[in-house]
């Protein structure tokens, strides 16, 4: 337990059309939220012991996280949502230690969130009040989820 613990955050987006984001856009529009485009990402947060040197490479090689045929993978500099973004996480979360049966060397806990970003016609983030409304009415079920914003 002497090694320093750090959180490394990876975002996985789809290189092919994101049907889930498309569906979210349709439902949000129906709810009267002024959004022109929805961007979704899978956020993988890995709690690592010390310096896990090859972590980014290892993560990229795990197809349950990143299938190069359809995904793009990027490491995030921060372990918090970016401005204008919301992360939806399970409320009572038991972090996993393996992904699809595969443990990652040096990784002691794995957490997964879904990141949503709502953009207007000009490609800018919608107003924070609109994002809040989207979270309250649709993106988060507070019975078992929490919404994390900046």
């Amino acid at each position, binding site marked *: 337990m002497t090694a320093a613990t750090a959180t490394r955050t990876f975002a996985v987006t789809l290189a*092919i059309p994101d049907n889930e984001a498309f569906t979210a856009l349709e439902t949000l529009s129906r709810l009267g939220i002024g959004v022109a485009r929805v961007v979704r990402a*899978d956020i993988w947060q890995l709690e690592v012991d010390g310096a896990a040197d090859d972590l980014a490479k290892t993560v990229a090689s795990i*197809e349950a996280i990143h*299938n190069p045929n359809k995904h793009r993978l990027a490491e995030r500099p921060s372990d918090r949502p970016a401005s204008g973004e919301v992360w939806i996480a399970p409320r009572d979360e038991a972090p996993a230690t*393996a992904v699809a049966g*595969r443990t990652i060397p040096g990784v002691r806990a794995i957490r997964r969130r879904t990141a949503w970003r709502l953009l207007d016609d000009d490609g800018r983030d919608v107003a924070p009040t609109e994002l809040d409304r989207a979270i309250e009415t649709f993106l988060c079920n507070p019975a078992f989820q929490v919404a994390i914003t900046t």
Partner: protein
Amino acid sequence: MTVVLEDALARGRRLGLALTDDELRRIAEHLGRVPTDTELFAFDAQWSEHCSYKSSREHLKKLPTEGPSVLLGVGEDAGIVRLGEWNGETYGIVVAHESHNHPSQVVPFEGAATGIGGIVRDVLCMGAEVIGVADPLRFGRLENEHCRYVAQQVVDGIAAYGNAIGVPNVGGDVFFDESFDDNVLVNVVALGLVKEKDIIHSRAPKGSAGWDIVLVGKATDRSGFGGASFSSLTLDEEDAEANKGAVQVPDPFLKNVLMRATYAVFAELRAQGIEAGFKDLGAGGLAGCSAELCAAGGMGAEVELERVSTAQRDLPPEVIAIGETQERLCWIVPPSFTPLLLSIYNEMYGLPRIARGACAAVIGKVTNSRRYVATHRGETVMDVDLAFLTGGVRYARESVTRAAVEQSEDEQERVVTEALRARPSTLGERLRAVLAHRDVCSRAAIYERYDGVVRGCTAIPPGFADAGVLVPIPGAPLGVAVGIGGNPRYGKIHPRRAGELAVVEAIARVTAVGARASGLTDCLNFGDPTVPEQMGEFVAAVDGLAHAARELGVPYVSGNVSLYNRSSNGSSVAPSPIVGCIGTIADVSRTATKGFKRPGSAIVVTSPLDLRLGGSVIAEVLGVRSTTLPAANHHAFARQCALVLDGLENGSIAAAHAVGDGGTLAAIAKMSLASEAGIGFRVDPRPVAEHAGHDAAWFAEVPAFVVEVIDAVAFAELTARHRVAAYDAGQTIGEPVCLIGDERVPLDGAREAWEAPLRGFYGAAVAHPSTGSG
């Protein structure tokens, strides 16, 4: 001409095609000009092993394919077995069998999921309602990290796809062997229900010149470009990376809607009495599918590739023509029907709103020319003779039958006996070790991930009997069972006998539930056909498959061949002839689950005591390398099957279970483990020990059944009539315990040994993208 040839060869190499120089030469000579890129890709796909069976076809002729139970034989996307009559209609069960081995090794989740997706389309395009799937799986050793990953992802992929489209998974099997470490086998059998008069054929109907060719489904994209030749090539590490682009992306949500929309189209076609042509897009993409449809009907095709809905702009014509984007189907319909067809898919079922770019669209016309002509923005990119394109090539591969390294059976038994002496143990302990063996232990942790009961037609779900049973026509007592056979331990020892035993096992499984074996479907997974020894294994196994099926009188109605299954060091996977048997049942009330039903029944084994242990699990548990595999006596086995069917029919048998991996004692124990009433058993091991000289005979894996007899008099009459030398092995008892002589093994302890291995592996919770609800 030389210039043309050189140019063709250079292009073929530049495009990275699997076509050989000789094949490229034949194409260029036939065309008399330099082939276009689109043509080269089309030939590459059509002449691949996957599409043309160029190495295997000669040998497949040996398989028996005719019989009164065959409604539609081998030749189209799927065969059809006669199910029976109901309300004046003859019903058939559509049977298709495919492998998705190489894609599943490279991207296991998508590979396994698209395997289900593809086979379901094969059944659908016969005009059938898809009623069930079954998956034979062969994984590498779970001690190996990557193998663990593949074994998890394949199961997740099958679950995610099959569950979402709402087709129950009612059978299958799983083996683990190091020969699959670099090359898993993911086979899949799919079943459909169709009335004989409603069968749709995969061909352009007679006189269909001028009819519309309609492409339905997902927008064409770059995914799955080069899949057909990819699945016929040997994998190595670098290829695996390069080939990821060839793996298709599954969309079970779209498929769910596509299936239901297609059922609505079937209803309209039937109401209007229209004969249409219908085929799914698989290997070879749009060009392969529409070419085969038109070739089969003796027609030609003119296709305008720019009319194809694409996900990206400016896709090159060869990708539009040959790419293997999933979830697509091709119709040939009279123009008068086209507007309704388009409106069902595009309006009623709203495909464009289900997935971006998904739709039904007319992309060309049927012609009388017997040529396949494709244009792209006014330019002809393909103009070939259809018979030449779809006829493929044939190779007579050299094969060598492996030199006989077999010991005599006496020698094999001597080695086993020595090992038994060297490792003294009680029968109960040996039973526990056998139940915990990777080939014997409970598969519940896998099949519980599959929905085995969606559609509400499941009579026996996975795990409760040797075969899954469906009652596909609501209100009718007709049932269909599907059982899988094939054992890599056997394949490695003796490919021919392994082929025979695969047939025997599949038939035994459906027989044990009370179904009559009506049709077989085979998937032949072997190594490199250009290596004579590996080709020899294929030839030997096909001989075995043919021999057993002939002897037992059950025809093949469909099948598939997957070659080049081998590891990077060139060694083949365990020769794996995998057989599915379709059993039909006139009265589902006569079926039985395998669990013991009541105390006080006689436990009877339907064969003479057999002492041969070559290839058995007990031999492996004892650390003995098997070099022989017992020959099967098909006539004796056929009489046992007749006995079991009659015993279930007249009610003298309450439960039956085929002896398989682990032998007789494991089979008896599994009948207790499956007992809903918690029924245990008592066996007296002495007679066997005295007869055999050792107690391992309890674990011999011979073709036989263990049956629970509840009417000894009626059963004795049957054994006499069928000349079966059955022996009493013990009795059922009303206590959850295995009494083996003086030894007492609580059923809970046996259950723990049996369930723990895969529960530990598949039961663990993991973080994973959602596999959905239900």
